[in-house]
């Protein structure tokens, strides 16, 4: 996969300037995650790539990932996705981020669905919160805002630095971002607002990049495992099943998925 040519950075520079002021913690990069539903997972594995699909927010075809956290994109109309009822998570090599087209401080889908409107001014655009393609910026944000990678992974906004401490009064975008993370009464974007988004302009091949897939246990039993998963397993990709029992709350599945991803990260030394 080729690194895309440098794109002209749009949007106001204030947020990026604030990020670049933060010390580089010197941590290793985190893996990238992509959550989908069962049929989406099968498509990805059979085609050998995460396809770039048309995106309303940016008006072009993109493939979406999150930095470290197993979050999933909220849809534009706020509707529930099938993946919430039975999620599958692909975990990619951290170095893949070097080939990204853009990084953003949060889920841009939630931004365009106006889920952040209670904090962010109408004049603020999604491009204002772009981190460009600088792969050092995610860890700078995490270190400055969440203090530890563990806190970021947990999405624990109770430990986020206060807006007053974290940014000066004139650093409008940084303050708004911190307020967004700490604002009480949010009921929707909590998972996505603290997940750094990584987008690719081309389809992302699995070969050479995919490290693990977290799947419902029904896909990975002894007698009836999915053959397309067996193929990945043969290729050296870790298959991590989680207990999937129907009729549970989406948060229950997400907690099990998160727990499985956490264990893999601990084993691999990322947490």
């Amino acid at each position, binding site marked *: 996969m080729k690194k895309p040519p440098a794109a002209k950075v749009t949007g106001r520079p204030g947020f990026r300037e604030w990020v670049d002021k933060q010390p580089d913690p010197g941590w290793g990069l985190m893996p990238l995650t992509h959550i989908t539903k069962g*049929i989406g997972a099968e498509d990805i594995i059979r085609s050998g790539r995460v396809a770039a699909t048309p995106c309303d927010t940016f008006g072009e075809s993109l493939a979406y990932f999150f930095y470290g956290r197993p979050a999933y994109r909220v849809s534009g109309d706020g509707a529930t996705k099938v993946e919430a009822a039975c999620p599958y998570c692909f975990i990619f090599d951290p170095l893949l981020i070097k080939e990204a087209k853009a990084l953003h401080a949060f889920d841009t889908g939630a931004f365009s669905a106006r889920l952040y409107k209670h904090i962010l001014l109408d004049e603020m655009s999604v491009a204002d919160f772009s981190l460009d393609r600088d792969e050092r910026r995610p860890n700078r944000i995490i270190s400055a805002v969440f203090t530890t990678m563990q806190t970021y992974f*947990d999405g624990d906004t109770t430990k986020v630095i206060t807006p007053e401490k974290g940014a000066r009064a004139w650093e409008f975008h940084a303050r708004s971002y911190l307020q967004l993370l700490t604002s009480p009464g949010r009921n929707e974007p909590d998972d996505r607002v603290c997940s750094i988004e990584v987008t690719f302009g081309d389809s992302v091949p699995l070969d050479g990049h995919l490290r693990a897939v977290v799947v419902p246990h029904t896909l990975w039993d*002894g007698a009836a495992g999915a053959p397309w998963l*067996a*193929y990945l397993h043969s*290729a050296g990709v870790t298959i*991590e099943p989680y*207990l999937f029992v129907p009729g549970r709350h989406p948060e229950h599945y997400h907690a099990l998925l998160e727990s*499985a991803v956490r264990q893999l990260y601990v084993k691999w030394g990322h947490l």
Partner: protein
Amino acid sequence: MTTGQTEYHVVAYIPMGGIEGPGFALPVFADPNNHNLRLVQEVDEYTALVAAFRLLQGGSNEGIRLANGPVAKIGGELIYIFVSEDGNAHAGRLKEIEPALRTFALKCPERIAIGLQIAELVGNTEERRAARGAMARAVMSKSGVDTARALYERSTLNAALWGKLISSAVDANAARRIAGVRSKLIATLDHRGRISLDLQALDARDNVRIDQDRLKLELEREFEHMELRPESIPTKIAPRPSKVAEDVVQEALVRLSRTGRQEERIALLLDYVFRYPAASVDIMGSYSSDRAAYARSLIPEIRQMVVDAAPTFRVDKAKVVERVRRRFARGMPTSRAFLLVYLSKYLGKYPEVNALLRKHVPNKMTLAGAYRNTIRKNLGLEEPDGVSRK
């Protein structure tokens, strides 16, 4: 406008375990106010009843159509859909479809993963315990001990812990607080079958109300400590090699059956395991015994090392060979030289094994010294003894 008495009809379902074959499916409801919109039910985790209906992305194209589907309403029981092995979709409340679920479990015992879902939904303590154990062994046969433990000792155990904590909360608010931190509530099963709990993330108001000793006892009743070893894999769920691995396994079995000496079979077996890491578990699962007693005694040990390494395919070749060499040196000292001949012949190509074996080339003065030159040659050492450079 909808009220608590509004009825929502199931009009379709989305299979969750793959399009083909039996399994549970996600019920899709028609929006009573707009028939082009589709909804999914959301459970109240405290009462286990329907809390809400949420808009499903995708509209009326989502799912496989279901005629005369059951109805649900807020505050009522959840609707489940199960597609049995004959392709029939059984839709209804859990009690209504329980006979179909139990019939399936009896007719299709090999569907271990679905059996576990059924046991979790309608089984008693013993049934859940048995189904969890069977699933862990099935996963171990496929992905190794680490993955089996991840499913059994983390995912399944923690899901049980969260379920007990939420359902026993004093009120709905407490249940919400507990659910909000569930991913940080952890139960651990030790090697004696004892459960320990990490509930630090709980709000103090909830923590004081929990009888941890009783909770631990309840979980210990449902989770036995399992010896997750390859020997504990029941024959009926023996690993089924993937298509990629099938040919390799077949070839290995044929060659092993035609090989006369047990020392050579062991070396050949290790060569197949090292050469085809992705098929290594399948090879060891298929070659479960050897016709010679000593080689037979080594198989479980080799298999354990392979299974442990399976998730990453990073088997420590030198470590495995050294263990085999030592076991032979102790138990079959007279055959030690033969083993070295075959280990060097088949495994000398692996640098780390070559380096190891070079340290064990027998001395000329020993009984095994007769094979010294063969072993040296196999390891690529310059010339056999006695051949001078010109």
